[in-house]
């Protein structure tokens, strides 16, 4: 039987989901820590928090569409998930480079997330290619 669904993509999506929960809680805790220890006025705190929460809101449909597209071997949801991944990558790059205070732990967490996004995107592209053909 020819199974077009990609197992590595499924595993990666699952690991991404678990890791993202940890990433969200850790980044939120660090923003709270930064606001207490450093001088973090509201004008600078609001955009950083907004980006983090926007990324969390994007992550849920992104993962759902990824799972669904991969399992049903449809390219449309997978393509939509790829589009949302681009948005998440941009937000992740913001948190990596343009936050008010970028701690070393921030750099590590965001780098790992970016790597996961990159690998996921590659696997999604190959999966779409497999489904289309």
């Amino acid at each position, binding site marked *: 039987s020819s199974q077009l669904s990609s197992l590595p993509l499924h595993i990666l999506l699952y690991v991404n989901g678990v890791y993202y929960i940890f990433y969200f809680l850790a980044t939120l805790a660090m923003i709270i820590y930064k606001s207490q220890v450093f*001088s973090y006025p509201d004008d600078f705190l609001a955009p950083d928090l907004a980006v983090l929460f926007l990324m969390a809101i994007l992550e849920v449909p992104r993962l759902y569409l990824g799972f669904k597209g991969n399992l049903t071997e449809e390219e449309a949801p997978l393509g939509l998930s790829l589009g949302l991944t681009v948005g998440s990558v941009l937000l992740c790059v913001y948190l990596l480079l343009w936050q008010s*205070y970028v*701690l*070393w*732990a*921030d750099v590590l967490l965001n780098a790992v997330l970016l790597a996961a996004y990159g690998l996921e995107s590659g696997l999604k592209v190959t999966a779409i290619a497999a489904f289309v053909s």
Partner: protein
Amino acid sequence: PADTRDATQARVRSPPAPVTDVARLCVCDLLVAQCDTNCCCDPDCSAEDFSLFTTCSIPVVVGDSQLCSQKAAVYSLDVEANPPERIFKLIDQVNPSIFCIHATNYEQALYFKSPEIPTAENFDELLDKFGGATFSAEPDSWNLDTDAQNPPEANETSRYEYGVPVQTEDAFLRLPSPVVSSWCSDANPAGFLVNQATKCFRSVSVEKCDSIQALSMLFYINSSILAVPKSSQMVNITVQSIVVQSVNGMRTLLSSSEALRLPMVLDELCINAVLGVNYHITHTDTGEIIEAAAAFVLGAISRESLSIEQSFEISFTQENTQPVPLSGNPGYVVGLPVRAGFQPQGYPSPAAFLSNKHSQLTILHSTSTQDCLAAQGARAPVLFGYNMISGCKLRITAAMKCQPLAQTLLDVLKGQSFPEYVASFGNSQAQDVLDWVPVTQLHISEQIISHTLQSSCQIPVSLGIEIKWTKYGSLVNPQARIVNVTATITSTTLKQLPSGRERIIPITSSVVFTDISSPAEPSYKAWPTINIKLPFDFFYPFV
């Protein structure tokens, strides 16, 4: 001069650029163009100066140590070398913590803000922001606070509070008092519930006596008092009584005090001039004034006097109460009279005591004549803490009968109404029966073994009141509390005198205050104990 002024202005406008290079930053370089001792980073120091240093006062110069990696200038003295030399190293200091700052996009995070230099354009704005006694980091929130502060003020002044000036129609109720010198100043407001008595001098002249406002009764009663601050409810000041003082000092109370008496010149005297005012204000227990009365003392000013002394007093009474002067709150204050009272008749158990100004503990007051029988009635109040002794001399003749003499002497010693109970605290209320100490009365008779066996009579010769008090309450603010009062009457036998002879017996009465307080022991609170109890099923699977 114009050029230098422009140059200085240009210099003032731009502040010096902040130094951020750690190699050039030196905090101990205080003297300009001179070497500071033990300052290893001072550029004015030469190698010979460094060889004389003992230590480096600033070993490391770094920026914010929270950064992950930054440059640090390290200064040290190499004492091994001869001569000692300074070592300067520029190293990269690494913060190993995982929460070190890798980068910041918020420039003001790591550096102090350069202050705005005031110029003609921004001076007003800077004065608004920073000109007050305090300023907050976020000026926008400050404006919101001042709006919120205004409404609570309107609620607070709905009643008088202690010390708040009593308001009248135009300004405040004035109580003239001496301010710097002894001349009267009319700008002293009377405070609510603040009982005051003042005396001051006012310059007068008989010719202008009807035009000097402060001598006329109207000046003190014409403006009505506001019942509560900032309200429109008025309380008129009524004239309670008028006492007229004549030129030789004799005072007469006028029977009808309705008519106002204004000062006028009569026979080279100015009559009806105000010499004293006594305000009595009645208030409710919620801080509202309901009645105000003024008692005047009017007098005459003669032509020669250039100034008169006026005395003013104000007292506050709560409605439906009888004011009782306290002798302390709660402990007795030294110098205030000891309060005493009686238990009303007919009560099997003490329910309340009668105590008023007339029921005080009093002692015989020595007079200049020193004759006991002539000085009946002169008594002095017993003041707390003041040991007193007084006495008189009794001349006994043969004609005097024993029994009436003994009774008279008892009256002389004890007074008309010797109290049965003494207040334990200075502010004991009449209803609190437990706060009153009974007066123990002892009789000691000096038995003189007389040669004759005649039935002798005993006459009291001395009264000794011993008041035992103790310190009560906290260690830092002990209150005096009367614990025991003992009145001892010592009687002696009166020997019958042969006719024609007379004897003089001294009669004494004394008051002694004894401090019976036990030495204070500070007590400490018990150490807190930690009470940890495991729940009984803590080791559930195993137990």
